[in-house]
């Protein structure tokens, strides 16, 4: 088929049912992304004869004789593999406004935006409804499209909270300034290489899995012959081929933190969607045909399934992990019930006494639903043996080192026999703190000896990966008439699904900072994480806190109302302060300190900003109200979080920083560059960052728990400082002077005897390390003003303000982006998203058209304000700010709806069809 691509004639061999996207990617145009493969997300947008189209929906044959422009050709004619160009005004605008984070949606976003005429630009909510971004919250994208993003310096420039003019801003890229992401120009050019953006991915064997149609069953027989008979099928892998060992998909520094309850392939199927067997084939078509043939050749013994977590601990509940299924293995630790995955109990003081002395007691039950992370790049992995025979896995992961260790343990390989690395990672949000593909790809590579690729479909991403833990939280609050809290009690039921990955971590974390944030003598927690025959929950932004914060902050809002106390004041009265012990539900010592304290500032900033500008008046007939909520988070996960970095001075006088941590839109590498620039008194562009490769450094726990700045960044800062010391020492030695009399000055070291060029001192190399302790606390306060339609239950956000204590803000624009993105994701969770299961445990919402993540029209601009604090723990005084903005949002929205209507909503999402009755009744009752 002949057509023109980016100005040049192409001759593409296409298949009858092929879509244009895969044809273009096979021709090397990797800027055309696969986000949903269904026309919902827009990441594959190209121009066809000048019109923007979702290339995943265009039959390839329809491009015959026509002209296609991809992101690579937007700046002008080019050939695949040419040097990246980003000269189109829309690319320049996205660069200027930094209208991206992970960058996976960016090519499609730019291609769509570049095709908008003035009329369409006037309504971006409509024009961009076919382009989904999970990271940014759209403000930066709107700014880019409006062409207003040329001056990046106005990032978070709000009254009192402007991080951009903090002290020490001694250069355009220095800490405190809005340095663009190192990969920014590649991202907007469509040249940033994500996991599968390399030719080898196209020639590798394809892996596809057969997934369980049953919530609970045992495989009694698999006949692989029909699948193997299909031309192109190379191997069929079943539980008989899988290593016998068990692991947890959840990855932590200490692998014992998660129950080893998962096999690569298991004859016991514990949720609809679990892997039954895998087909490896020369083509995707053959692999799919193999899976269809296999589906007819598996016999199941169907067992009763447990779908309701509330029933999990009943004596006769079906057992998710039955010791009878593991004859000969050590019995799992003795818990009260085999369906109990983890529990937490604790009490300080005497909650009963505290409630007895309270003037106001509030009790409520709150429900938080299952959520999908919905990063635009699905899970996936490309594996091969390198020239030395080493198993190499290029994966979309937040935890390359922990994944390497898990693969080693599973297959009995040494650390020198396995390498795990990342390309650019297309979003994570905790979802990639799991090993969901690498184990099976490793097995396939070891079995076939050939490169194997496995990229999850969007449907698989929804139906068979991890989710937020659904939780039922019962909360009891007692308070005196003056607002002082006398008792806080949480009873939490967390549904971890079929496997225990993150079950314990999430329930412990979820019951910790939510209580430690308040000074109250009597606190109690009873938490249970239970197994059910549903798809497994896992790590998700906020790690348990979003669910408990929703409950407690809603309850505190009710207490404030009943006592006639302003909700901001109720927090001021009760929030923990420096000098007080941070206690959740036990008096055990811990390593969390007040590295800095900005909660008081956050409360004031949010309250004043909302008062100063309450937003537009509601439409006639709508009710308006305001609400707020706060959240505290430890800046680093407990139980060890390690990072190593190496800083080196190369022969050309530039620097290379090697880190273990991945860049997935969190902006860690930008901050690393800024930290190194400070330590080395260098221009940021002279510093390259290489990361996310088990060959880069000795160890890195991973990019989770918002540690990119505070742990990996600390390691980078220390490595760079050590390198600076080594540079000065070598220069001083050569010149025969005291190192203290020398300083690095750009490309040279200034000494009393004259300058020494850096290049003359190379090579030099220095390590840095961080061990993630002690830890500090960060704070977030969210305030909304909303309008609610009393009859239809529609909610509109009139005003959104978020105040954050991130310590010293190293990159204000980027940190603002993290906050905006967290708030947007949380708005989706609070208003729209619900991963729904049907009566058989099958995921019903397995596409973006049924699982609605916020689009441009769904997210208002959020004013972001930063407290001015300087943390004693984090690098240059910085604290973490990736997960935490998510946590207070649902409660703040619920509290605003309560204020507007009188209805206390106790379950998210607050979708019109779920809340219209409660809202209408409350409005009627309230008059």
């Amino acid at each position, binding site marked *: 088929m002949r057509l023109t691509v980016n100005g040049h004639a192409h001759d593409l061999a296409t*298949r*009858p*049912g*092929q*879509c244009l996207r*895969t044809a273009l990617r096979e021709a090397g145009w990797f800027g055309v992304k696969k986000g949903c*493969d*269904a*026309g*919902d997300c*827009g990441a594959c*947008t190209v121009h066809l004869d000048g*019109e*923007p*189209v*979702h290339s*995943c*929906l*265009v*039959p390839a*044959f*329809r491009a015959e004789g026509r002209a296609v422009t991809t992101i690579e050709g937007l700046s002008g004619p080019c050939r695949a593999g040419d040097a990246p160009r980003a000269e189109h005004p829309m690319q320049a605008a996205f660069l200027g406004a930094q209208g991206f984070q992970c960058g996976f949606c960016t090519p499609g976003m730019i291609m*769509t935006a570049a095709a908008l005429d003035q009329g*369409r630009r006037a309504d971006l*909510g*409509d*024009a*961009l*409804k*076919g*382009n989904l971004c999970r990271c940014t919250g759209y403000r930066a994208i709107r700014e880019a499209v409006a062409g207003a993003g040329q001056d990046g310096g106005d990032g978070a420039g709000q009254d009192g909270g402007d991080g951009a003019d903090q002290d020490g801003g001694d250069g355009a890229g220095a800490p405190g300034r809005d340095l663009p992401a190192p990969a920014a120009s590649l991202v907007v050019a469509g040249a940033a290489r994500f996991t599968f953006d390399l030719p080898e991915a196209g020639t590798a064997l394809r892996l596809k899995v057969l997934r369980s149609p049953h919530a609970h069953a045992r495989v009694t027989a698999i006949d692989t012959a029909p699948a193997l008979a299909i031309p192109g099928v190379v191997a069929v892998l079943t539980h008989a081929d899988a290593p016998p060992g068990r692991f947890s998909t959840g990855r932590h520094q200490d692998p014992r933190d998660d129950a080893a309850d998962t096999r690569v392939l298991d004859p016991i199927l514990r949720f609809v969607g679990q892997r039954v067997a895998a087909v490896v084939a020369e083509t995707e*078509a053959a692999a*799919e*045909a193999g899976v*269809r043939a296999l589906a007819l050749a598996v016999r199941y013994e169907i067992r009763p399934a447990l779908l309701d977590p509330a029933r999990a601990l009943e004596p006769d509940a079906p057992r998710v992990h039955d010791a009878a299924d593991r004859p000969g293995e050590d019995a799992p630790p003795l818990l009260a019930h085999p369906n109990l995955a983890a529990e937490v109990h604790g009490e300080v003081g005497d909650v009963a006494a505290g409630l007895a002395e309270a003037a106001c007691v509030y009790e409520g039950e709150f429900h938080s639903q299952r959520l999908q992370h919905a990063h635009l790049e699905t899970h996936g992995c490309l594996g091969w043996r390198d020239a030395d025979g080493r198993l190499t896995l290029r994966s979309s992961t937040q935890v390359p080192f922990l994944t390497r260790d898990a693969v080693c343990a599973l297959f009995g390989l040494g650390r020198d026999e396995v390498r795990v690395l990342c390309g650019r990672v297309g979003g994570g949000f905790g979802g990639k703190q799991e090993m969901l593909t690498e184990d099976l790809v490793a097995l396939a590579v070891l079995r076939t000896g050939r490169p194997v690729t496995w990229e999850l*479909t969007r*449907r698989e991403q929804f139906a068979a990966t991890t989710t937020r833990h659904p939780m039922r939280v019962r909360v009891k609050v007692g308070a005196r008439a003056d607002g002082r809290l006398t008792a806080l009690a949480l009873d939490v039921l967390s549904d971890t699904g079929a496997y225990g990955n993150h079950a314990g971590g999430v329930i412990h974390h979820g019951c910790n900072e939510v209580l430690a944030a308040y000074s109250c003598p009597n606190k109690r927690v009873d938490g249970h994480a239970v197994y059910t025959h549903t798809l497994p929950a896992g790590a998700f932004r906020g790690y348990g806190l979003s669910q408990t914060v929703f409950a407690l902050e809603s309850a505190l809002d009710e207490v404030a109302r009943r006592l006639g106390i302003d909700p901001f004041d109720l927090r001021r009265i009760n929030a923990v302060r420096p000098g007080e012990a941070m206690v959740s539900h036990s008096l055990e010592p811990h390593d969390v300190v007040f590295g800095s304290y900005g909660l008081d500032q956050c409360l004031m900033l949010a309250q004043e900003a909302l008062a100063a500008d309450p937003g537009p008046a509601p439409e006639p007939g709508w009710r308006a109200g305001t609400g707020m909520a706060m959240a505290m988070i430890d800046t680093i996960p407990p139980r060890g979080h390690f990072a190593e970095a190496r800083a080196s001075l190369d022969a050309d006088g530039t620097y290379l920083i090697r880190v273990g941590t991945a860049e997935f839109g969190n902006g860690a590498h930008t901050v690393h560059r800024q930290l190194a620039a400070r330590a080395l008194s260098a221009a940021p562009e002279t510093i390259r960052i290489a990361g996310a490769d088990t060959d880069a450094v000795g160890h890195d726990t991973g990019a989770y728990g918002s540690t990119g700045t505070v742990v990996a960044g600390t390691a980078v800062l220390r490595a760079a400082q050590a390198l600076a010391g080594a540079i000065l020492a070598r220069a001083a030695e050569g010149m025969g002077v005291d190192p203290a009399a020398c300083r690095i000055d750009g490309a040279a070291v200034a000494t009393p005897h004259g300058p020494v060029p850096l290049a003359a001192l190379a090579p030099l190399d220095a390590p840095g390390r961080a061990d993630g302790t002690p830890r500090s606390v960060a704070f977030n306060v969210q305030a909304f003003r909303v309008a609610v339609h009393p*009859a*239809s*239950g529609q909610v509109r956000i009139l005003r959104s303000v978020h105040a954050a204590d991130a310590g010293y803000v190293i990159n204000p624009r980027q940190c603002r982006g993290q906050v905006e993105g967290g708030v947007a994701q949380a708005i989706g969770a609070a*208003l*729209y998203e*619900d991963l*729904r299961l049907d009566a058989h445990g099958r995921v*019903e*919402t397995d*596409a973006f*058209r*049924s*699982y*609605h993540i916020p*689009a441009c*029209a*769904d997210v208002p601009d959020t004013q972001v304000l930063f407290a001015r604090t300087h943390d004693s723990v984090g690098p240059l005084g910085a604290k973490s700010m990736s997960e935490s903005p998510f946590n207070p949002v649902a409660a703040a929205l619920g509290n605003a709806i309560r204020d507007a209507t009188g209805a206390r909503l106790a379950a998210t999402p607050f*979708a*019109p*069809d*779920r809340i*219209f*009755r409660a809202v209408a009744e409350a409005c009627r009752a309230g008059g």
Partner: protein
Amino acid sequence: MDLHTIETVLRPRDRGDLPEWRAGDACLAGGTWLFSQPQPDLRRLVDLAALGWPPHRIDADGLTLSATCTLGDLEALDLPAAWIAAPVIGACCRALLGSFKIRHVATVGGNLCLALPAGPIIALAVAMEATCLLWAPDGTERRLPALGLVLGPQRTALAPGEILRSLHLPAAALSRRAVLRRASLTPNGRSGALLIGTLAMDGAFALTVTASVKRPVRLAFPAVPGRGALIRALDAALPDDLIHDDVHGRPDWRRHTTGALAGEIRDALEAGA
């Protein structure tokens, strides 16, 4: 997405080229639904675009739309001033869940024949009392009111191999005042209820209900009914098992919203009468 089981794409130039229908065949119009999900049972695509049907024709009788007319083309049509229902045409095109990029490719016929409750062209066709022209595989034709085409979610009156050729919207219907109201769980989301009311010169009022119901429902009144009478008529016409239930709206909300929107439409048309 790639449809790996497709072995052949037929590109007929005229009706005589249409193949003998067999299991595993599908008509390809815009492809926006067909290529949006796995189609493991399909082997052959019949590309209707190859037939080269002119997308639309305007004459004194009304508006004729080929099944392959895109929503984008329909939205951009310049219609006679006397067709005062025209604004609901644009509104229906924009009521699609997909973006303008989808509207440029998605077709009128595809939207009708997919028969999703939220299909906005279904609402338009029923409200405008459109007639469908169907081509049977044996070379014969038949005409069917749009109201009779959609039987339920993704279920139509089309016989195997029968092809929707075109849709005729009569001028009389297009000349009525028309008001559209729509509700969705999200600002630009899939319709949970989409209603169109029309008011004829002689005072006759009709209400078309879609999206909240499994198949379109049309209520006709000789004159604008009172609110109470309208709600009673709706309740009688919409038994519980006709209310659609999926992730885009719970049935009780759909029913409630349908009543509220019907009232708004009634008031708007009465006010302008």
